[in-house]
């Protein structure tokens, strides 16, 4: 049996954890989610740095990320070699890929030209780090592409099996239910940007053709950030150079020995060299005295730093154009009251869209301007915000969507519904409908109807219930637009509003009783 190194064991553990948490980021019968994949983002230094820079405040959720950055001072890029799930995926597939040799264009300062503009944009309140964050890239590829693909494939076969054997399929139910309950997404959802998400992921895999961990050492902004910190790292491999009599490290090392000198910034602490050194010379030890701290690798030039930050300004300020027509329909998840603050904190990880109970949240393409690409928007015609559900706030790693109690979330305003009399059936066709009123979850009903006597198109007098919206009660959940029986354009539509002050609490409270006399039988 193959023996795993400690680093590999840790990698496999965290990859498994990541996938398990990914599957747990879903409604499973309880109002609260026990654990979600957001832990990976909260412990992500890049997320922490860019979000806190953009929001200009300390965000307690992201403390683990800061700690990870401090830890990198001692342990270098151990995150990349021991934890990062994307790195693990690369390590697992790279052995099957023949190498063509490094791409010159990716050498040098390119990685800084990715990292600094991202952080620079944060200084101007646009949080873009998530676009190239490795965990976010992986999560979005899973959420928007792989998981739906799995669901569609399995469910599709299950359906066609029914076409073949009919009700006899029931015998296989237990096995399918296991799959359905633990592995598959609840419903089939098609996401915009699925292609881009998958493409970026496959591109990163494709780069493995050139050298091992190309993405990690040449591009990844998270790795670059950790690499910068690890310059001051205390845990060092000795000897720092290839030994002239052996040079085995050149083959063993996945990231750092493309030159004579070990590239500290790229070392991911996998410890392969120490474990497999033929003469047991290579080892890792803490060095505190300055003279041992050779600063290897190219120094970060000042013009790269300044240039990078300046491009951050350019990026932050040049993609802000927003089409007003699309703005009127730009609905954010519940609890988001201010677009500017939202853009500071949203890291575009895709978790809210993964967890959304009714598949109501989708990544924006241009709806929020180019600056808002991949941020979540609510599309009521595809799914509405479930009245009693608070999952998106629970999983948001940065608090961009606040984690609210159900009663508070129910009062948060997403938008306001407006009846379109040209389409709405009781107005346009003069026949009854009122499906929107039926579904409106507000106990006092934000959609009500009045009985109107009209002359029908056949000349007879008809009494029709026509809906109207009570703005003071509407929270813009979008169920009305979602269930409107009209095909295509709905007869009622939720529009964005600037003033998202929460609805007032219901005035007179219902008789409070903890005892629920109908709460299910107990035996």
């Amino acid at each position: 049996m193959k023996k795993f190194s400690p680093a590999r064991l840790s990698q496999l553990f965290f990859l498994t954890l990541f996938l398990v948490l990914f599957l747990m980021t879903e409604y499973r019968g309880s109002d609260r989610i026990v654990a979600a994949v957001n832990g990976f983002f909260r412990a992500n230094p890049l997320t922490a740095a860019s979000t806190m820079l953009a929001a200009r405040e300390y965000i307690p959720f992201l403390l683990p990320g800061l700690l990870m950055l401090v830890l990198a001072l001692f342990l270098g890029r151990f995150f990349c070699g021991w934890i990062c799930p994307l790195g693990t995926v690369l390590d697992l597939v790279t052995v099957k890929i023949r190498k063509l040799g490094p791409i010159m264009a990716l050498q040098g300062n390119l990685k800084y030209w990715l990292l600094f503009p991202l952080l620079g944009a944060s200084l101007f309140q646009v949080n873009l780090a998530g676009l190239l964050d490795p965990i976010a890239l992986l999560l979005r590829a899973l959420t928007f592409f792989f998981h739906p693909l799995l669901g569609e494939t399995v469910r599709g076969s299950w359906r066609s099996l029914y076409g073949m054997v009919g009700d006899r399929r029931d015998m296989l139910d237990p096995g399918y239910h296991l799959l359905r309950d633990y592995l598959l997404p609840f419903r089939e959802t098609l996401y915009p940007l699925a292609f881009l998400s998958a493409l970026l992921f496959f591109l990163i895999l494709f780069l493995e053709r050139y050298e091992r961990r190309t993405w990690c050492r040449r591009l990844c902004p998270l790795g670059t950030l950790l690499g910068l910190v690890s310059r001051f790292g205390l845990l060092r491999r000795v000897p720092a150079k290839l030994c002239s009599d052996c040079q085995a490290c050149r083959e063993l090392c996945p990231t750092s020995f493309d030159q004579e000198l070990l590239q500290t910034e790229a070392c991911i602490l996998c410890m392969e060299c120490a474990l497999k050194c033929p003469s047991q010379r290579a080892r890792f030890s803490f060095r505190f005295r300055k003279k041992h701290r050779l600063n290897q690798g190219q120094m970060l030039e000042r013009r790269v730093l300044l240039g990078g930050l300046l491009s951050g300004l350019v990026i932050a300020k040049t993609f802000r154009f927003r089409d007003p027509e699309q703005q009127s329909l730009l609905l954010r998840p519940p609890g988001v009251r201010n677009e500017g603050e939202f853009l500071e904190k949203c890291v575009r990880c895709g978790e809210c869209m993964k967890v959304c109970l009714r598949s109501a949240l989708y990544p924006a393409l241009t709806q929020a301007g180019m600056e808002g690409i991949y941020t979540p928007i609510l599309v009521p015609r595809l799914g509405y915000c479930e009245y009693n559900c608070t999952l998106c706030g629970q999983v948001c790693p940065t608090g961009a969507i606040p984690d609210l109690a159900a009663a508070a979330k129910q009062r948060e305003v997403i938008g306001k519904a407006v009846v379109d009399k040209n389409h709405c059936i009781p107005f346009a066709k003069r026949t009854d409908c009122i499906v929107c009123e039926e579904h409106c979850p507000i106990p006092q009903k934000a959609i009500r109807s009045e009985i109107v006597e009209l002359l029908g198109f056949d000349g007879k007098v008809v009494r029709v219930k026509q809906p109207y919206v009570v703005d003071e009660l509407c929270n813009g959940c979008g169920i009305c637009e979602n269930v409107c029986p009209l095909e295509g354009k709905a007869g009622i539509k939720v529009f964005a509003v600037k003033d998202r002050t929460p609805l007032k609490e219901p005035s007179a409270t219902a008789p409070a009783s903890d005892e629920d006399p109908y709460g299910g039988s107990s035996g």
Partner: protein
Amino acid sequence: MNRRRFIKVVGFCSLFMHSWLRELFAAPGSTVAVARGADHAETTRKAIAALGGMQRFVKPGQTVVVKPNIGWDRAPAYAATTNPTVVRTVVEECLKAGAKKVKVFDRTCNDPRRCYASSGIEAALKGMKGVEVKHPEEERYKTVTVNGKALKEFEIYGEALTADVYINVPVAKHHGLSRLTLGMKNVMGILGGNRGAIHKNLDQALADVNSVFKSHLTIIDATRILTDHGPQGGDLRDVRVLNQIIASTDIVAADAYATTLFGLKPSDIAVTRTAYQRGLGEMNLDKIKIVKV
């Protein structure tokens, strides 16, 4: 008088003696059992017993569908969904009568997972042998042609069609469009397709559905009723506790009686009235045998 003449006479008579003929051919005397009691399991059992017990409807080895209202993501106290104790008792009675399998499902309006959990019905039936609480699967809907007054065809859930016995267990509540939703409307839970479109001509559409698809037994949960802001409610001030269970083999008669709980006449409800006019059952309370237990 030869056969042809006889048919002519009868046909002719039917023009003038419409109601007389209806009485002749209608099921003689619809019976509605009304049970009262704060112990809802016991009350449900009493109502079923008053109709002759579950063994009258369920024979050993049969597959039964029990169709409660699980339409909304509301706790049982809000009276938007069927009382879980009632559902459980009906299922138990089916099993006692020898049912091989009891299937419980509804096509929900809110998220199905949340509805099944919040209604308490999933939890109430958990772990019972021979009971399946399941979400409808879209491939199981079958298109049924009716050529009715409002609907030409519609999709019915396959498992409801193939079941030996179909027991309809609605909750009595207010409804924005039809004023009340009772047994007739609860059958919408086994329809597929664009159900919203049915609302355009709801009473005729429901009569179409119920004339093709018959509930063998209707048990209306009026342990508590939703009197306003239905069918979803959400305010306990709209809920009234009545501790009643209404059961009948005549879905129109059951609905007709339940209407009185809201202080309304059966003829006030267009769905009930239309069903009666189309001969689906009895709605005149003085012609219904009401057994109070």
